[in-house]
């Protein structure tokens, strides 16, 4: 059996469509989808079973069709193999196509579909496979690394731009795997060199023309996200633990990386964003307008525009930024329904009024890309309060990180005045200094009383600053390599800090000033970038981009549920705004511009008691013939 046959990212998952070309079997379906013209919202449902007739639970079932308000609609099969889209309006859809994915399974033959009442019912056969090498996400190949910060550092530094390892990387790694240890180590150091060049090559326009920089530009730690100190941690680990071949992965081994899957009432909608390919849809936000309509916004870091989506209708509008604003990074709404945006490249803060569609902007920090140890300000993340809204301190100030200089900046929006606070030292080499990208202050939150902001440093600590005295108060050391990025806070000032490198959730009580616990994800290389607290279900959501799934941490039971996504390659998931009234989560796929796709906004409605009731009502005994 050709194991590489279906390698395409991890599109070893098979696709079926109803009117159709199967990748296995090669039999065309000749089922006609007649419409009944029925008045009710006709359901589409079905059952997935294996060739022995056993039901298969946890299968990702995705519908695409003309007439859907989103590009795709996805749910999961229940433990009895059943799936249902109760309100899909199946009789009004045309060009329907069904895609089935589950790691460890491939489809067999033709799905049998028949009309039942006013809806449609499908029966899908799959076959279990034991070698899942062509299907597993990149994170799975990191499972053999030790649980140490030096190994975590690899996920932290590599997964911020791409899955690691991804197919091209695997092909390259296989090229030198047979070399003796000392030579393999030398190659990994050269890979680090190459990645330093890539970090500059991705800069927009002329700034990305690497040929015009003197070579010493690339070896200066101030121009890179990781330092020589980090390379000295990562390279020995890579030399010792990176797999040498990528053609075999046992199904049973992959099961160890999984949490229980979301229930069959889960609904995931993906909405395609428009070209150009070279975009990076970074952060997302949701805002209800005065009339109650919920809109989702996403910011393009590369092209100066914001996307506004009505998830209920699928209506999508592009909204350009005012001239001169570049590098849109963070979007956070405030309690008045206005959206605050940081512009990382041009060094601005912007506040957008969705009702009048007007902007107010302020210059904040030093502009431009990092230059040696000088460092552009690179205004990064705005501190927000529980519920993901902009935090204002007692004087009405807004706090943000300057990722390029290891500083925080406080902006007074009334006067435009700014004040800067140095972040704690992270132990960089003297010739590099502390005011650089490597020290990287990242995400921030504000306590309920507005008196303290807590920020993370990518290569350092979790620390707080008093918003009145402007002085550092607490410093919580985090091992270098574990990589805290974008944290969240609940209404009791409990901090939830996803460790991007370590693949765990650090929980810290900011009032009691002590760590509550650390909760590792089942897949330690999933690279959780950010977290958001949901008041509706008292849980914390994280994106596991490198594992192509979302995780929900239930605070009461301290347990994870996972929500694998229908799109898998290249995805990085950044901020996750949550509708605190319903517990629905929203996020965008955010691959770096060079990777070109997928560019989609996503609305994930997790299983709730209400949804489960609706699903159970629809006929459950679809047997096909």
């Amino acid at each position, binding site marked *: 059996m050709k194991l590489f046959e279906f390698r395409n990212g991890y599109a070893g998952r098979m696709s079926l469509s109803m009117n159709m070309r199967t990748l296995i079997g090669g039999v065309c379906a000749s089922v006609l989808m007649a419409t009944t013209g029925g008045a009710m919202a006709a359901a589409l449902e079905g059952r997935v079973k294996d060739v022995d007739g056993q039901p298969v639970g946890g299968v990702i079932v995705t519908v695409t069709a003309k007439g859907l308000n989103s590009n795709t609609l996805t749910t999961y099969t229940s433990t009895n193999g059943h799936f249902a889209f109760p309100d899909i309006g199946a009789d009004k859809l045309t060009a329907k196509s069904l895609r089935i994915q589950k790691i460890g399974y491939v489809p067999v033959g033709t799905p049998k579909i028949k009309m039942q009442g006013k809806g449609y019912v499908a029966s899908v056969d799959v076959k279990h496979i034991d070698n899942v090498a062509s299907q597993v996400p990149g994170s799975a190949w990191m499972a053999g690394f030790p649980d140490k910060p030096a190994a975590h550092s690899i996920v932290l530094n590599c997964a911020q731009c791409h899955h690691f390892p991804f197919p091209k990387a695997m092909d*390259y790694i296989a090229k030198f795997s047979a070399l003796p240890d000392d030579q393999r180590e030398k190659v990994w150091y050269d*890979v680090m060199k*190459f990645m330093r060049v890539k970090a500059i090559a991705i800069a927009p326009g002329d700034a990305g023309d690497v040929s015009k920089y003197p070579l010493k530009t690339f070896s200066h730690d101030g121009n890179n996200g990781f330092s020589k100190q980090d390379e000295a941690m990562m390279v020995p680990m890579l030399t010792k633990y990176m797999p040498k071949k990528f053609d075999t992965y046992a199904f049973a081994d992959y099961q160890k990386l999984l949490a229980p899957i979301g229930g069959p009432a889960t609904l995931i909608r993906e909405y395609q964003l428009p070209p150009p390919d070279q975009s990076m849809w970074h952060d997302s936000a949701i805002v209800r307008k005065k009339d109650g309509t919920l809109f989702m916004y996403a910011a393009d870091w590369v092209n100066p525009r914001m996307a506004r989506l009505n998830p209920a209708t699928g209506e999508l509008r592009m909204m350009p930024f005012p001239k001169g604003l570049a590098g849109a990074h963070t979007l956070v709404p405030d309690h008045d329904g206005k959206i605050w945006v940081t512009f990382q490249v041009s060094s601005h803060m912007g506040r957008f009024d969705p009702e009048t569609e007007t902007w107010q902007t302020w210059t904040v920090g030093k502009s431009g890309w990092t230059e040696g140890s000088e460092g552009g300000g690179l205004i990064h993340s705005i501190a927000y309060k529980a519920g993901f809204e902009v935090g204002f301190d007692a004087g009405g100030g807004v706090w943000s990180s300057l990722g390029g200089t290891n500083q925080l900046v406080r902006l007074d929006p009334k006067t435009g005045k700014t004040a800067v606070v140095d972040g704690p030292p992270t132990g960089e080499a003297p010739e590099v200094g502390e005011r650089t990208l490597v020290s990287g202050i990242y995400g921030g939150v504000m306590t309920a009383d507005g008196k303290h902001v807590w920020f993370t440093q990518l290569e350092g600590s979790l620390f707080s600053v008093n918003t009145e005295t402007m002085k550092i108060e607490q410093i919580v050391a985090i091992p270098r390599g574990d990589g805290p990025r974008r944290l969240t806070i609940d209404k009791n000032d409990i901090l939830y800090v996803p460790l991007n490198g370590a693949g765990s959730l650090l929980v810290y009580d900011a009032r009691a000033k002590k760590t509550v616990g650390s909760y590792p994800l089942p897949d330690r290389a999933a690279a959780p970038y950010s977290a958001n607290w949901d008041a509706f279900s008292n849980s914390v959501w994280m994106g596991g981009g490198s594992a192509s799934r979302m995780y929900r941490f239930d605070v009461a039971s301290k347990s994870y549920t996972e929500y694998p996504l229908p799109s898998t390659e290249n995805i990085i998931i950044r901020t996750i705004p949550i509708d605190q009234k319903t517990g629905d989560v929203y996020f965008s796929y955010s691959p770096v511009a060079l990777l070109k796709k997928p560019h989609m906004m996503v609305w994930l409605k997790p299983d709730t008691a209400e949804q489960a009731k609706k699903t159970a009502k629809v006929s459950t005994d679809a047997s096909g013939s």
Partner: protein
Amino acid sequence: MRLVLGISAVLVGLSGMGNAMANEKLFVEKAKKNHCYECHRNGEAFIGPSFLQIKDRYKGQESNKEFVDYLANKIINGGGGAWGPTPMNSNPQVSKAEAKKIVKLIFKLEKQ
């Protein structure tokens, strides 16, 4: 006669220089487009050997069709071992014709 020859020699020399500049310009354009400068430089060793180092090592082989083919395949498929343990990345986006053109232009590069 000697004056005419002298002037011809100068003119040939000048057009040679013009050709060298045009070749280098074309080479730089192709190398930038195909991401070659992420590992190589024209005159300095970097992650990979410099193009002048490559030209020097294989001096005299540029008229050998099979050798040009071999180097063109290296560009497309990558490889390892010729200059150290670090393999060269594959560049599948480069066509055979383009790769051969690039190889020939390497041999036309002049020392600065």
